């Protein structure tokens, strides 16, 4: 079920009515939330709820054993079981065809003439999110960083909690499970702020991503022609806006919906296009994934504790796998590799060419970071390397006679939206929507809120899927 759909409106109203009714005690309310979460997921594809159940069962049992087991060998085995099942799901459902393709290519270079048939198995929605979330629980249990979930119901709800089930934020056990132990009710202000965040998230998705930017992206990246400089840049800038608004919109909706239930979810985006460099970017973009990768991949790989070479290797491996997490294609790996390279170059610059960031050079640095990020988006969005390479050559003015596919109004529209987005991120980088809202008069906030809602209504999102669902 999508947040930007009529079914979800009805679903949410029913869930909220049941949640705040006096029919149930807290345990029954949690059961209701769990059931609602399965309905939320199952309305997309009922049989794939079984995967959620398996993941929940395996990690519950593994967590239970890890809580009482002292034998290090056995503890490792329980951890391996959890990793095997969760990563096995990912390997089978997400990476199977990719692995098979590459295997075929490799063996055929030795002249074997091996043929394979793509299995065309559906990718379960949000599988990368909930498998990472449940794995964080067992890894934390293994490392004794978190307490075992008190009941199976609390754990199952942690795995399946519908606001963040299919596209995050990826929440750590200690941050979410403990919230289920005692009855939660949103205060009136929390509830209203939750509705505001839901409106803001829908505005980002339906108006900004789908209405204002998606067509320019599809036109540019759907073209099989060598494009003009302006079209290539505008299509890529439009994608940088589309993916931000799409994903940040989902996260904002999720945080808002959870808040309406009295549950606090962590921020996932903090104005990433106002970042001063790439380390800063990854503290602001998809924060819950980057912190997951830092804690469960980069640090176990050695982090910065074993010398410079090991640190750079760990950084690059983390970013390459981070790229692969987004999609089973070499273009995503290149995207991760570029970010890994940027991070390494940034560290080298800090070591050999340090400079102080002032308010004067800060904006230039943010603009440079944003420009470099846009180059990586080309590989993220392009379906194949040929398209990506054509885009890159066009963006660097190597195809001066390239085809024009965007109208002047498209260019103006994308330019204005992305320009405002960048300026907004720059000025908001050290604050938050909540802090700014507190400074506004209630009438101004109401007008902003009404305008966003009105634009959502007249945009009539036709239920376009969120981009990150495919990951």
């Amino acid at each position, binding site marked *: 079920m999508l947040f930007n759909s*009529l079914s979800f409106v009805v679903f949410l109203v029913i869930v909220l009515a049941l949640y705040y009714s006096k029919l149930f005690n807290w345990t029954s309310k949690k059961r209701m939330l769990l059931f609602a979460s399965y309905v939320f997921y199952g309305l997309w*594809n009922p049989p794939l709820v079984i995967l959620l159940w398996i993941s929940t069962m395996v990690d519950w049992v593994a967590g239970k054993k890890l809580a009482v087991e002292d034998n290090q060998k056995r503890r490792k085995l329980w951890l391996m079981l959890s990793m095997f099942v969760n990563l096995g799901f990912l390997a089978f459902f997400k990476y199977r065809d990719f692995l098979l393709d590459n295997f075929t290519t490799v063996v055929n270079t030795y002249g074997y003439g091996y043929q394979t048939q793509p299995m065309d198995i559906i990718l379960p929605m949000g599988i990368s999110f909930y498998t990472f979330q449940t794995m964080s629980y067992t890894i934390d249990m293994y490392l004794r960083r978190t307490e075992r979930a008190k009941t199976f119901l609390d754990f199952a709800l942690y795995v399946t909690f519908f606001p963040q089930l299919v596209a995050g934020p990826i929440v750590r056990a200690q941050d979410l499970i403990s919230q289920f132990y005692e009855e939660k009710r949103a205060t009136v202000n929390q509830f209203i702020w939750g509705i*505001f965040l839901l409106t803001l998230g829908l505005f980002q998705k339906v108006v900004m991503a*789908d209405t204002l930017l998606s*067509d320019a992206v599809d036109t540019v990246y759907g073209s099989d022609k060598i494009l003009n400089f302006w079209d290539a840049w505008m299509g890529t800038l439009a994608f940088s806006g589309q993916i931000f608004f799409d994903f940040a919109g989902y996260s904002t909706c999720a945080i808002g919906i959870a808040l309406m239930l009295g549950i606090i979810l962590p921020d996932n985006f903090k104005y990433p296009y106002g970042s001063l460099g790439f380390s800063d970017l990854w503290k602001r973009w998809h924060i819950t994934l980057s912190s997951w990768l830092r804690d469960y991949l980069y640090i176990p790989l050695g982090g910065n504790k074993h010398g410079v070479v090991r640190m750079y290797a760990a950084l690059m491996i983390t970013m390459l796998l981070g790229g692969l997490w987004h999609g089973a294609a070499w273009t995503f790996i290149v995207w991760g590799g570029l970010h890994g390279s940027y991070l390494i170059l940034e560290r080298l610059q800090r070591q050999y060419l340090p400079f102080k960031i002032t308010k004067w050079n800060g904006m230039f640095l943010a603009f440079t970071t944003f420009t470099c990020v846009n180059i990586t988006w080309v590989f993220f969005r392009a379906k194949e390397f040929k398209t990506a390479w054509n885009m890159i050559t066009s963006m660097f003015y190597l195809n001066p006679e390239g085809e024009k596919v965007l109208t002047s109004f498209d260019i103006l529209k994308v330019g204005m939206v992305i320009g405002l987005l960048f300026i907004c991120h720059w000025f908001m980088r050290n604050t938050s929507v909540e802090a700014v809202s507190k400074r506004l008069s*209630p009438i101004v906030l*109401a007008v902003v*809120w009404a305008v966003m809602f009105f634009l959502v209504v007249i945009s009539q999102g036709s239920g376009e899927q969120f981009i990150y669902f495919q990951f």
Partner: protein
Amino acid sequence: MHLKQSLIIAVTLVIISVTAWELFWRSQGVYPTLDDNEALWANQRARVEKATNNDILLMGSSRVLFDMQLDQWQEQTGIRPIQLASVGSSPLPIFHDVVENTKFNGTILVGVTPGLFFSTTNPDAQPWQWPQSKVDFYKKRTYAQMSNHLLSIPLQKNLAFISEDQGVDGVKLKELLGKISIGNRVVDSMPPFHAFGEIALDRNLKMKQITVTDTAYANSVIKVWRFFMKAAASGPPPDKASTMAFFLKDLKKFKARGGQVILVRCPSSGSLRFGENMGVPRANFWDDLVKQSHVKAYHFEDYESFKNLKCPEESHLSGKDAAYFTTEIVKIMKADGALSNSKNN
């Protein structure tokens, strides 16, 4: 933060602005209509799963949608057909889907618009891609999509601004922005295209009366047909060999399980008919299809009663003429024994 105050003001402003928006569009002559989208088509396709050999499926392009009126068909036969035709489409993907993926063995009326029927079997070409996307949607539709569509029906029926119409008739924000034009950086030579039909829940479609009464409106649609004819003339030629082979293979399988197919060539007129005669002449295409299919076939030009039918925009019949055409052609079919499965026979 005085959030309660903000919420009350925001809700009031939203109610006022949305009401004003609806009233504005109604004052501009826009009224609530249903969208002929994939979900609406899929609901009819789902009916095929339970259809008996008494039932009739209608397939083809927009001409079958406009020209075959379900009320008149039902009056004549006692059976309300299942309307599966799709605008701008070859009937082959949908016929293939029914033959391959259902056990249906009743009657299928296949509308033959030669420029579309014989166009292509290339899955990436529009006449194939559009109907195939409907078939794919039906196969993959989720419960959430079904309930979204169900919930959207009352809104579509009652609010003018809820519309998926695109281009010149579009009222949603994306379409309104799409109408803004600055300079001529990219030339779009496609003339403005009105949505000149209104569809019902069972996909019975009627031409909007404005197409009949307003010549300028009808001419704007004719300009679009001429644009497509010009584009077709400079594009690849009809792929008669592969389209015929594809259809005949499915037809053989369908007949083998007791199904019956009727071919119908619906009316066209004016310069469009002239263009069709040039590009896809009857003798080479329709006559050959009929000869190789060995099924009942009806071409509008073969009947005196249809000689005076004139399409307001050269390709589809007005609501009144469509009702007449349906009544008469069903009578002809019945007299010919083509509707042997229908209850009245």
